[in-house]
C-alpha cells in the first residue's frame, strides 16, 4: 500500500497531503516526521536525487524538485524500489505541468492540475498510471495515444 504522498514547500509547510489507510490520529505524526526528515536531509540535495529512509516496517523515498519537497511513504509491496518508481512518475508529471522544476508560486498556480495528476497516478494507495504523456492526456480527459 502506498500510504502517503506529501508535498511541502522549503519551509516545511504542507502543500499537498494525501493519505491512504493511515488512521486520522497518526497523520499528524507522519506529517511532522516527514517534514523533519526533509529538514534534516534535503539541504543541498540536487533536484530529483532520491533519498531513502525506513521507519519501523515502512519505507520513505523523498526528493526535492525546485522549491518543493516530495515524500512518498509505502509498506509491503511498496518498498523503496516501488516508491522510487512512484516518485519518478510524480516528479515527471510535476515538471510536465509546470514546465520546469516549480517555484512554490508556480506550484500553487497549477494546483488544480497537479491534484488531477496525483489522482491519476495514485488511486487509494495503488499505483495506477506511470507514463507522464498518458497522464498529461488523461487529466484533460483525452484517451491515451497508444490506443
Amino acid at each position, binding site marked *: 500500500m502506498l500510504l502517503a504522498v506529501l508535498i511541502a514547500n522549503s519551509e516545511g509547510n504542507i502543500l499537498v497531503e494525501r493519505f491512504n489507510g493511515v488512521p486520522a490520529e497518526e*497523520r499528524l505524526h507522519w506529517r511532522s516526521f516527514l517534514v523533519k526528515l526533509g529538514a534534516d536531509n534535503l539541504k543541498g540535495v540536487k533536484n530529483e536525487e532520491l533519498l531513502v529512509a525506513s521507519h519501523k516496517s515502512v519505507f520513505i523515498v523523498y526528493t526535492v524538485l525546485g522549491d518543493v519537497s516530495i515524500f512518498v511513504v509505502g509498506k509491503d509491496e511498496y518498498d523503496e524500489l516501488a516508491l522510487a518508481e512512484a516518485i519518478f512518475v510524480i516528479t515527471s508529471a510535476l515538471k510536465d505541468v509546470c514546465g520546469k522544476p516549480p517555484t512554490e508560486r508556480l506550484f500553487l498556480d497549477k494546483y*488544480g492540475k497537479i491534484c488531477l495528476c496525483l489522482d491519476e497516478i495514485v488511486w487509494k494507495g*495503488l499505483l*495506477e498510471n506511470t507514463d507522464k504523456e*498518458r497522464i498529461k492526456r488523461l487529466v484533460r480527459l483525452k484517451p491515451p495515444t497508444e*490506443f
Partner: protein
Amino acid sequence: MAQPLVKKDDDRDDEEYSPFLGIEKGAVLQEARVFNDPQLDARRCSQVITKLLYLLNQGETFTKIEATEVFFSVTKLFQSRDIGLRRMVYLMIKELSPSADEVIIVTSSLMKDMNSRTDMYRANAIRVLCRITDGTLLTQIERYLKQAIVDKNPVVASAALVSGIHLLQTNPEIVKRWSNEVQEAVQSRAALVQFHALALLHQIRQNDRLAVSKLVTSLTKGTVRSPLAQCLLIRYTSQVIRESGVNTQTGDRPFYDYLEGCLRHKAEMVIFEAARAITVLSGVTTRELTPAITVLQLFLSSSKPVLRFAAVRTLNKVAMTHPMAVTNCNIDMESLISDQNRSIATLAITTLLKTGNESSVDRLMKQITNFMSDIADEFKIVVVDAIRSLCLKFPLKYRSLMNFLSNILREEGGFEYKKAIVDSIVILIRDIPDAKESGLLHLCEFIEDCEFTYLSTQILHFLGNEGPKTSDPSKYIRYIYNRVILENATVRASAVSTLAKFGAMIDSLKPRIFILLRRCLFDNDDEVRDRATLYLNTLGGDGSVVETDKDVKEFLFGSLDIPLTNMETSLKNYIQNPSEEPFDINSVPKEVKSQPLVEKKAPGKKPTGLGAPPTGPTSTADTYERILSSIPEFTSFGKLFKSSAPVELTEAETEYAVNVVKHIFDRHVVFQYNCTNTIPEQLLENVFVIVDASEAEEFSEVGSKPLKSLPYDTPGQTFVAFEKPEGVPAVGKFSNMLRFTVKEVVDTSTGEAEDDGVEDEYQLEDFEVVAADYMVKVGVSNFRNAWESMGPDFERIDEYGLGPRESLAEAVSTVINLLGMQPCEGTEVVPSNSRSHSCLLSGLYIGNMKVLVRLSFGIDASKEVAMKLAVRSEDENVSDTIHDIVASG
C-alpha cells in the same frame, strides 16, 4: 483566484504571494454557490474546486452539513459540457466521499457517463462509482464493470481492474465472479492493464494453490510487459516455490532458472525482487545464493541511495541466516559505514556485526564508536541489539563489548535507547557468568545518574536478585542506599526492597541493613515507610544474626503467582461491594483466562531484558508454569522441565487455528493445544482434543482439561496429559482430532449465540515427541573451561557415518536440531567450501544433567559425511543416551 495578482516578470517577487493567501473555509463555501448558477462559468467553477481541494489537502475538514451542501452543488456541474470541469468534478466527488443516502443523487449521472461513448468519461465514472458505491448498487453496475475489464481502451480496463482490487476488500463474492474477464485482461498487450489484472487475479485466487501455480507456470513462459508486473510475478513465483519444495529426484528447485534469469533483467526493480526471492528460498544452497549475492554486491557501490539501501537491506536479512554468504561483501559494506544516509550506514554496521568473526570485533567496535555520536536514537537501538547478539555469539569478547555498552550508557539518549542498552547488559550478565560482576557495577553507576524512574526501579529489582550472589555483595549497598537519599519516592521504595533482599540473603550484612532500613522509617512517603516496616518485621529487625526463614525468602524473591488481570478484577469488585472483611488474596482465581499467546513467533523471538526477568511475570516459560500450576490435575507432576516452541497443527488461514506446546515433566508430558476460532459467526463450546497415541507406546493418557468456550478471535487452551517412564527419553507420534460443540452466533457484535449447538470435529495434523524435547538449550561462556571442569569420567566417544549429504552445513544443522542443544561460540556456522568442521554444543538434559558435546565433521568428494561425537556429562547414562539419540536419528 481570491487575491488578484499583478503578473511580474521576476519570479522571486511572485513567490511572495500565494494564490491561496488568506484562504478561509467559510469564504470558499460561499464562493461554491456559483455551482448553482443557471449560466455556469466553467473556469470560475474549476477555480473554486481547486480551492476546495487545497483546503482538503491541508487537512481541513467539512462538517456534515457543509459537505452535503457542497456535494449537492457539485452534482449540478454535470450539466456543464466543459471537459476540464468534468474532470475536476469527478475528483471532487471522490474527495467528498458522500454518505450512502446522498450517493443516489449522482448515481444516475455517473451511470450515464459509464455508458458514454467518450472513453474517458467511462473510466472516470467507474472510479468514482466504485469509490462511493455499496453492495446493492454494485450488483446493478456489475455487468458494466465486467465489460470494462476487457475494454479496448487500457485506461478504462485499468480503472475497472483497480476498482476491483479495492472492491475485493468489501464485496469479495461479487468481484470473484469476474475472474474470467480478469484472466483475459492478464493477456492484455497494454503493460499496465496486465499489471493490474495480475494483481487482481492473484488476490481473487490466492487461496487456490493450483490456480496460482498454473498462473505462474504460464506467465513465466510467456511475456510480461512491465517491470511492475514482473515484480508481482516473481513474488507469486516465490510463493509457489515455498509451497512446492525441492524436486527430490533431481534436486532441482522449480522456477529457480526463471528467478536467476530475472537477475539479468534491465529494470533494477526486477533484479532486486529476484535477488530477494532467491535469498529467502527455504534451505537455499550456496550455489543458488551466489548469483543473487553477486548482483547485490554490485549495487552496494551504486551512486543512487535507493539502490544502495535496497542492496544493504537485503544483505542484512541474508546475514541473519547465511552470514558466511555475505562475508565477500564486507569490504564494500565497510565503506558504507560513512554513508551520508544514516539508514544505509546503520544497516551496513549491523550486517557487519552479524558477519564479522571474532578477530574483527575490536576493529569493528572502533569504527562504530565514531559512528554512534552522529545517528539518531532509533538507529542506535538497532546497533545495540546487534552488539548484544554479537556478544552472545563470541562470549570471550564480552569485555570490549560490555565496555562499549557502558560507555554509550553514559552518553545522552532517550528512554527507549537507554532501555535497550540496559536490557542488553542484563542479558549479557545472565548468559555470560564472567560478565556478571562488571555488568552489575556498570548498572550501579548508571543509576547514580539516571533520569528514568522505570529503569532505576528495574535495575534495583535485578540488583536485589543478582547482587547477593556475587563475591562481594557489600560493595553494592552504597549505590542502593544512595537511591534512598537522593531519588523520588518510587525509586526509594524499590531501593528499600533491594536492601531487604541483601539482608535476607547475606547474614553478615543483616545488622548493617537493619540500620539503613530503620532510617527509612522516617521517610516522608507512605510506601517507603510501609515497606521498611514490613521488611524489618519479616527479617526480624532486632538485629540478631539469624538465618532468614525460607518463607521470608519466598516472600521476597518469589513471584506473585496470580495473574495481574485477575487481581485487578477482584480488587475492583472488592471496592465496588464494600465489606467489613479484609481483602483475601486467596480469593483471587489463579486460572489464566483465555489470552492471546504471543509465542507463535517464538523462533525469531528476541531475548528480552529487564522487561521480562526470568523470575518476572511475563516470560513465556513462567506463563506456562503458571497456567499449568493453576490446573489441579497437573500439580502433582512436579517441576516443569521444558516447554517446546509451538508446533502448528493447522495450515494458515483455516477455520480453526491450533498449535501445540509440549510440556515435559520428569514422569509426564502435557500437551497444551492453543486454539483460535477464526469464524465470527461461530461460538465453540466444550472444546477438547482426542489424542491417538498408538504410535507412542511408552505413553499412556492420564488426564485432560477441556476448554469451556472458544469465542471468535479469543485464543483459548485445552490440555491432555500423558504418563511416561521416568528418566527415559520416550519418543512417539500422536494423532489429534479436535472435538467441540458449535453454536451459531446471533449477534456478532456482542458474541451472543443460540442456545442449541451441534457436535462437530476437525482433523488436526500429527506431531511427534522427539529426543530434543528432553534437552534444554543452555549456553556456556567458555566451552573449553566447562569441558575441562566436567572431566573425562563419563566421556563417551564414537564415530558415525552420516551418508551422502547435501552439504557440510546441512549435516551440522541436522545433528544440532536432532540433539536440540545450544551451539556455542558461533560454531554452528560452517564456512562455505570447508571440508571439515568442529561444532561445540551445550545443554541441560532431563533430570537437570549438564551435557557438553564436541562434534567433528568431515566431508569427502562424494559428499559422504563422517562424524566423531564426544560427549561429557554428569552421568554416564546420559552420555550413552546422547549416543543412542544420534545412532537412532
